[in-house]
């Protein structure tokens, strides 16, 4: 009976150790997963992209001769040019999207890289409005450090911005 008690104690000890290791393992996974969700996913992916969203929303409100960037974009899509002609109530204005975007983006992202373009979902083609460097496709091909935002302009067109923050 005493031998049985001893065996039972040893089994109980081993079982406690195994259960402890299992609990530690599960807690370790949960801990890592929670940190990943909290920091990487929520903070870096969702919250940090708010910077790009705010940039796009602000840019849309930039005005030149009484015409906002968002109004000019709609004309741009329908006239199929980056320099649409728009009547502002007094005269016809040639609205240069690139100039207005440059004024805004060069100030806000003076140390960072950016790429602003129109994207057509039906043809899957894009037209660059402005980029901080030549060959932005290559610059933003590496997703590390990129943040992106987009706004729909019409059924097929989106205005998209990519930002790569300087280290």
């Amino acid at each position, binding site marked *: 009976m005493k031998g049985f*008690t001893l065996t039972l*104690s040893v089994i109980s000890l081993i079982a*406690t150790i195994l259960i402890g290791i299992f609990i530690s393992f599960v807690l*370790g996974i949960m801990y890592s997963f929670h940190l990943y969700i909290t920091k990487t996913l929520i*903070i870096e992916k969702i919250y940090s992209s*708010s910077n790009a969203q705010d940039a796009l929303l602000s840019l849309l409100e930039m*005005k030149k001769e009484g015409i906002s960037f968002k109004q000019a974009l709609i004309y741009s899509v329908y006239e199929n040019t980056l320099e649409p002609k728009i009547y502002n109530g007094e005269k016809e204005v040639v609205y240069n999207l690139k100039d207005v975007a440059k004024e*805004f983006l060069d*100030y806000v*992202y003076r140390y960072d890289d950016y790429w602003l373009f129109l994207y057509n979902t039906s043809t899957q083609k894009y037209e660059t409005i402005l980029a901080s460097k030549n060959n932005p496709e290559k610059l933003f091909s590496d997703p590390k450090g990129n943040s992106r935002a987009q706004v729909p302009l019409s059924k097929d067109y989106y205005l998209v911005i990519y930002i790569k923050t300087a280290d």
Partner: protein
Amino acid sequence: MKGYEEPTTTFIEILTIIIFTLFVLGSLLMVTKFRTDARLATTKRIMIDFGENVLSANCLTNEKNVLNETKIRSEFEYYKSNKDDKDGFSCLETSIPIKTIIQTEETKWEFGDAIGKIFIFPAVLLKDNGSTVPAIVTIMTEVD
């Protein structure tokens, strides 16, 4: 050998209880450590949440992301006479010290008093003459 059986059993049982207690304490420590790390991660989150509130505050903006120069000047007068306000805005309230810097190429306004990490928001400033200029809103805070 039989004489040692009873003390050995007691020893193993005590060892089992000690190991079990260690695992329980270890688990509690891990949970505490996680809470500490999560709190550190929220510094950025607090700055972003506050910044988004600044960008849509009715005492500073016409609409989301469109800052109004007249309203900012008025808020700056409020801040100068209410230095104990932790954020410096009449329409916002926070329990932690936060500094907000609104700047354009020509002008700069500073509200609140805090030193620490920063987060930057792009915005646009509607000037008194109806024109717009790009602006940067910088939020600065230090959360323990």
